[in-house]
């Protein structure tokens, strides 16, 4: 079976610092993959290489067999990537539902001329309302994003990404900053989306939720692939344990220093 997303031998350097070196993984259609690693492992750089925010010095990213390494972000989105960013960035001048409606109108915003030729938003608004319901914030549809707590804004990010009808949803730390209950609920939503057939890559620090919901894990450390496989096998890997325990020990040292 052709992988939905394939990342091969990606190397990213920022000046003298190597953020990723020869890193990669495959995601099969319908998969829910967790991308893990201690701080500074290169997870977000990996995500940015996939989305096109960062240009790798070497390596290749393919989506459904098509090489997308040189494409700008907006074209990758048009090919089927839906992105939810680590730091929430709603359009603050628009209501919650308008944020999602704009994404739902992706067919109308393909070119300026097409956009100029269309006025009606009813169908897209309806779709946006369904998606807000799906992520559980439909009651906040007419609110301004600046009045919402972080947990709801994270859900708004997910709803907006879903409105693009993506083939692959990339979620960068969607649970960060949420309390235990909110994180559990959003994780359940992610599982439900995956069960509906959506392929998902989840970058997350919240290990317990990742282990609970992901079918497959890829672990990065110092920009390199450390381990990959089913969650139990990966977490039993001594190298993975050393990377995590090592980072915990370093953090404790830093606290005591």
């Amino acid at each position: 079976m052709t992988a939905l997303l394939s990342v091969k031998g990606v190397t990213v350097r920022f000046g003298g610092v190597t953020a990723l070196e020869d890193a990669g993984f495959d995601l099969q259609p319908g998969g829910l993959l967790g991308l893990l690693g201690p701080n500074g492992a290169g997870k977000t750089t990996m995500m940015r290489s996939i989305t096109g925010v960062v240009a790798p010095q070497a390596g290749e990213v393919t989506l459904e067999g098509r090489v997308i390494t040189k494409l700008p972000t907006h074209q990758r989105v048009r090919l089927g990537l839906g992105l939810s960013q680590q730091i929430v960035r709603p359009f603050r001048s628009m209501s919650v539902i308008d944020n999602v409606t704009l994404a739902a109108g992706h067919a109308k915003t393909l070119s300026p001329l097409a956009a100029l030729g269309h006025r009606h938003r009813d169908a897209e608004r309806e779709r946006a309302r369904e998606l807000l319901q799906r992520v559980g914030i439909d009651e906040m549809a007419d609110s301004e994003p600046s009045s919402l707590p972080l947990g709801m804004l994270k859900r708004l990010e997910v709803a907006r990404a879903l409105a693009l009808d993506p083939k692959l949803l990339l979620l960068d730390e969607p649970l960060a900053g949420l309390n235990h209950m909110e994180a559990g609920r959003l994780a359940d939503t992610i599982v439900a989306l995956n069960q509906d057939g959506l392929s998902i890559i989840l970058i997350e620090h919240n290990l317990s939720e990742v282990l609970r919901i992901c079918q497959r894990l890829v672990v990065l450390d110092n920009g390199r692939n450390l381990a990959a496989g089913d969650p139990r096998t990966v977490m039993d890997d001594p190298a993975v344990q050393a990377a995590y325990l090592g980072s915990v020990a370093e953090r404790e040292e830093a606290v005591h220093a």
Partner: protein
Amino acid sequence: MAYEITLLTAMGIAVIFALSLNLITGFCGQISLGHAAFYGIGAYCAAMITKSGLPFPLALAAGFLLAGMIGVVVGLASLRVRHDFLAITTMGVGFLFLGIVRQQDFLGGEMGLSGIPSSGLSKPAFMALVLIIAAAVTAFSLYLKRSWMGYVFDSVADDEDTARMLGIDVARYKLAAFAMGTALAGLAGGLYAHNIRFIDPDSFGFVESITVLAMVVVGGIGSVWGVILAAAVLSVLPLWLQFISDYKLLLYGALLFTVMRFSPNGMAGMVAALKGRSKSTAPGGKA
């Protein structure tokens, strides 16, 4: 009556010019400090065409197209930079235009172009033409604001990076705004040249760029009616009160500062705030 016709014609041209910048700065959030250059390109182009004996409608169309085409070239080169750099780049384009025109003898150089032929229309008919075009540009602006293009412009003005994450080709939309805005500025320029029938480089300098920006900002960035009102008032003020024209830059500078400091959404914002207040005090009204 002749005086009123002069005022209304000047007002109508200012409205077209201000709405043209409103497409770029008001709708799409791209600050331009050199918009008068495109007004000038339209004016010089149209004037040269009627001076060569060709008809006035062709001159207007040529000014519109040439300004839009040069706008696209400038846009391709400069719209990839961020807002504050764009302000500097467009200011550079404004000075570049002045520098080039001043050196060209066939454009009248420093002395300007005089003897621009009449449009062939009587003064009232010319005024009617200007007002009809101003109404059409107003209708287009109102339509655009409610279309999906206006929706995308809102998102680009708000956060370009997030717009890209929604699959929006930000550079193309900015270019579209720039093309439309500069072409309409060129159209306004063609009308101006055939209204005054004399043009010189100083009519399209930095002061004019700041004046038109003041109209957009004072009216309320993005608000079509606010910008029309500001353009109407600010264009006739120096004609009404002659002494103001000596202090134009000072007045517009002070206006820009005051509006940005106390009411960043301009007159439209003030009206909305007042409406909100009266609603909130009305029984059962929402805040």
